[in-house]
């Protein structure tokens, strides 16, 4: 159960943290249609995060940060708002600061391709709750990937400027892909081994890149610290800043009702 909880935390944190980055786009997108679509994707991911964090808390209550006696803050929010950066288990690609719209499209393409492949395999997971979360998520992720894929092709074949920006975005996103594929003992034990989905991700990305006429960047992996990366709680400098913002109101009111 402790491992299942850890695994749900990983998937939940990916969703929560990337939803935060997506939500920063609200009222800043290139046009209304994209503003709505991005908010929608963020909303799906917040929904997934809630279910996954709740599942993690149920599977291993010892994970849940304790608050003063009588606090009405529910478990999902204790996990979201009362953990520090080193306790988050998301991959770093979910947390790095936003760039331009090309960066959004590229990152979303990679993350949604990866997450879709993962959730598809979790649909039959022995844990019925996780399986149900995955089944719901698969439909959502298919839309996310489709949105990203269409824009990826559009930007690739749009103007010189959009092509240039997409190339730059790929250079920043690609070094974070190996981290997605490495995986941890927990993932291998109770979830989907990322190494086993890596070939599928490669096929999908190759296909999109081929359609778009973009070359795969030849970028080495972004190193961790002593081999440890996001899944191990070793993050980039960006995460603590993100959390300072995300958690500020909740932490000011540990006894608050919302």
């Amino acid at each position, binding site marked *: 159960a402790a491992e299942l909880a850890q695994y749900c935390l990983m998937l939940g944190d990916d969703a929560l943290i990337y939803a935060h980055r997506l939500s920063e786009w609200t009222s*800043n997108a290139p046009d209304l249609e994209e503003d709505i679509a991005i908010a929608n994707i963020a*909303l799906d991911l917040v929904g997934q995060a809630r279910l996954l964090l709740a599942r993690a808390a149920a599977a291993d209550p010892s994970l849940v940060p304790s608050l003063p006696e009588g606090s009405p803050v529910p478990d999902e929010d204790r996990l979201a708002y009362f953990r520090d950066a080193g306790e988050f288990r998301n991959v770093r690609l979910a947390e790095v600061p936003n760039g331009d719209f090309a960066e959004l499209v590229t990152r979303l393409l990679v993350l949604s391709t990866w997450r879709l492949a993962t959730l598809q395999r979790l649909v039959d997971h022995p844990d019925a709750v996780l399986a149900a979360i995955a089944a719901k998520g698969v439909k959502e992720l298919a839309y996310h990937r489709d949105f990203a894929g269409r824009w990826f092709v559009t930007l690739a074949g749009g103007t010189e400027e959009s092509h240039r920006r997409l190339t730059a975005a790929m250079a920043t996103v690609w070094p974070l892909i190996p981290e997605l594929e490495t995986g941890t003992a927990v993932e291998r034990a109770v979830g989907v081994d990322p190494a086993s989905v890596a070939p599928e991700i490669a096929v999908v990305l190759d296909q999109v890149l081929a359609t778009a006429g973009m070359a795969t960047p030849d970028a080495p992996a972004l190193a961790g610290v002593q081999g440890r990366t996001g899944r191990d709680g070793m993050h980039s400098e960006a995460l603590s800043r993100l959390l300072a913002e995300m958690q500020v109101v*909740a932490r000011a009111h540990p006894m608050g009702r919302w």
Partner: protein
Amino acid sequence: MQVDQAPLEEAFEATIAGNDRIEPRDWMPEKYRQTLIRQVAQHAHSEIIGMQPEGNWITRAPSLRRKAVLLAKVQDEAGHGLYLYSATETLGISRDELTRRLIEGKQKYSSIFNYPTLSYTDVGTIGWLVDGAAICNQVPLCRTSYGPYGRAMIRICKEESFHQRQGYELLMTMMRGTDEQRAMVQESVDRFWWPALMMFGPPDGDSPNTAQSMAWGIKRHTNDELRQRFVDMTVPQAKALGVTLPDPELQWNEERGAHDFGEPDWDEFWAVVKGNGPCNAQRMAHRKAAYDDGAWVREAAMAFAARADSVGRD
């Protein structure tokens, strides 16, 4: 060559008189069209600018449930903006041109969004008071004489009243929380009460366009009528919530069967309308930055579509 407009005008007047809808293909007086463009565009701009004050708290929402609710609400506002721009486009003007008019300050948006959101509580207060006032203004517009506008309003009003209930529910929940939370609710209501009353526009005596708009069936009630309706609706809600409305003159008038209430600060109102509110410059700069930053994306999409199109025609 001058076409004889008399029969067209007669048909238009008959439609208005019969409380029927004018549709995009129908003839309409140029002033009616311009008045509608101004009003519907202003309404659309208000939805879009209105995303900012609440959007300010999405990343800081204090629970995941509230984060989802707020994200969905701000997304709805973008959706409302979209319908309303579409309705305006049926009057023969493009969304891009409307956005440019907004950014250049040639068209306005609701002044309420020129006030800052200073705590998460403001999300609830905006839902309760600002959406509440908007609904009072907008419900009659569901019967407005221009078809596309009226139909957009029906959908929008349904969602707005959902937002209003969500806002009220947030405040109600906070009032059941800590003393600090209750104080936050009161402080927020104190700040938004008067600006909410101003949302109905200046007193009828200072509202020169009202008469024509009512004659055309674009508007259905005067500013003061709507303001009174809002106050009467809100006072019992405030009581149920347990907050005080910051108006010492507010009291029930048995004779009128309505509440008496104080006069908003109309100097403040006009200052904000003229662009000198606390956030006018900030809201416009934000909108302009998003529009400018997105230009290359819109251009790329057009170039891509044009290429796909020309390939399709080959």
